[in-house]
């Protein structure tokens, strides 16, 4: 059996392992719920636009709502991206390696004719495939809701681009949680660490942006760009801004930014995290059952 087939066997195994977890299913349902909630909020705003605001603000709001309506599919797809899809990625990868050590099943798997690299590749790709499946579901659900209730929708030809951008940006936290899972070999510690990094990164990024807004000092913004959550949150939005390329659309122009830098940062973070996981697995003994 060649290496590819062995990796494919582990991918299939990983897929089944993740789908058997109730916590994961619950989180995916939560993501769908968020999308439906966003749909409900915008549906309410479109049918009952706020009134009584000062005239320029009222005009701006009405213009924004008018411009948003034909692009609601993008709002629906990107809305869960910043927070929830990163959490889904963390949930998928956080126990991927560690649970096998904790349950003692790593002994069973790694005493079979497979190299550690093939095993790790299968595990990682299995998680990635699952994440791509969940991303596809959220993309589909968001688009279906938008098309069904806010027709006509524009720029639907960019669905694959947005889908791939969301998936690509989520590699950062998928890989981070995967690395922690292998390095710590304890699921709880791996999940808490990954979620901790994610929340801390979001908070620091928010604080730095706030300070930048108050002081006008660009250094704060530059520093925040290096945090992992910045590239994860912004890469799909920047891509959307580039693709729409219509400065008249308010939120498209807001989403303009350094696409190349965000993309490169996703690649760098992902590579570093995967390399650390590989080194840890290859250089150390297989930990005995711990639970």
């Amino acid at each position: 059996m060649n290496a590819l087939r062995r990796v494919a066997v582990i991918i299939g195994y990983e897929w089944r392992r993740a789908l058997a977890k109730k916590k994961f299913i619950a989180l995916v349902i939560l993501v769908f719920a968020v999308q439906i909630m966003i749909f409900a909020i915008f549906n309410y705003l479109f049918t009952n636009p706020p009134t009584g605001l000062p005239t320029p603000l009222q005009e701006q709001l009405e213009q924004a709502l008018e411009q948003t309506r034909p692009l609601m599919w993008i709002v629906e797809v990107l809305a869960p991206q910043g927070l929830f899809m990163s959490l889904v990625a963390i949930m998928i990868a956080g126990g991927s390696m560690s649970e096998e050590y904790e349950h003692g099943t790593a002994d069973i798997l790694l005493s079979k004719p497979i190299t550690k690299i093939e095993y790790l590749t299968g595990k990682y790709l299995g998680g990635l495939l699952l994440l791509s499946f969940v991303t596809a579901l959220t993309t589909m659900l968001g688009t279906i809701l938008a098309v069904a209730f806010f027709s006509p929708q524009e720029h639907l030809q960019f669905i694959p681009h947005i889908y791939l951008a969301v998936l690509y940006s989520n590699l950062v936290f998928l890989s981070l949680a995967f690395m922690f899972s292998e390095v710590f070999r304890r699921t709880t510690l791996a999940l808490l660490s990954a979620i901790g990094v994610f929340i801390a990164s979001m908070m620091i990024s928010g604080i730095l942006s706030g300070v930048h807004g108050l002081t006008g000092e660009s250094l704060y913004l530059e520093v925040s760009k290096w945090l992992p959550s910045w590239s994860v949150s912004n890469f799909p939005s920047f891509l959307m801004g580039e693709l729409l390329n219509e400065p008249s659309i308010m939120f498209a122009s807001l989403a303009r930014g350094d696409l190349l830098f965000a993309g490169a940062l996703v690649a760098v973070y992902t590579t570093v995290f995967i390399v650390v996981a590989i080194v840890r697995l290859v250089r150390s003994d297989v930990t005995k059952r711990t639970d």
Partner: protein
Amino acid sequence: MASQPVITVSSLTKYYGDFKALDSISFAVGKGWVYGYLGPNGAGKTTTIRTMLGLLKPDQGEVQITGINPTENPVQALQSLGYAPELPTMQTFFTGEQMLDFMGKMFGLATQVRKEKIKQLLDLVGLEEWGDKKIGKYSKGMVQRLSLALALVNDPMVLIMDEPTIGMDPEATAHFRNLFTTLSKQGKTVFISSHLLDEVQRICTHVGMINRGRMVFDGPITQVLETFTQQWVIEAELKKVTKTMISALKKLDYVQNVKSEENKLRIELKEKKDLRGEISSEIFKHKGVLLSLNLHRVTLEDAYLRALKGGQ
């Protein structure tokens, strides 16, 4: 050893931090042997097995399975190896059939072959009616049986088992002991780590003993009994013991000493032979009436305890 050994362990040393878990362990296991690996808790049995499987990297020394180092080339070394861990745990979301199918895939078995193997192995381990049930519903004994089935899925040439009959009922234990003997007769090599001395004495052809990370014995089971046996003893219970009978017994060439207590005799032999016939004839000559006559050979347990004592 007539042919090339199937398992070779050479000067294997393994540290856990500062603790020396294995101290230059060496042994070789030949084709068709049932090798019993004995040792008290914490002696290093599981560490040896996990190193043999490539799960642990030795600090010194080397392991070869069919001439291949499993750490360097796991794909080749482990292709013809089956492993059943001590107290196995499995993914509870699989059914028994799915778990066997998955393991079959790991060994690259074709779909049809896997299908046939699954049925055959579930029958063999007595789980034919449980194949479609989730492993989470299995008892410990059933998981143990499934673990043995998994170890056999690739029709291995080498079978490594860590305490294979723990948690099994006596019937299943007997069944699997017979299976190991049958596999050995088919030319397969069976390596069993066990603390059940009776089990090892019954089915093993060779024995390795480890204590505190050091090998204290390695050889055929007959040799271990021979090496660590000091004396065979015949115990006789009679209606009445007489002084003339005792002195006559003491004069026999093959008798070392005779001790008496009420109507019982303890006859210590010079030779490791079953001499009950000769002893009973001598007792009858002196009008003795035998109520019972038992030979006490050294058991593996005696030998094991002596070996451990010697190894310390």
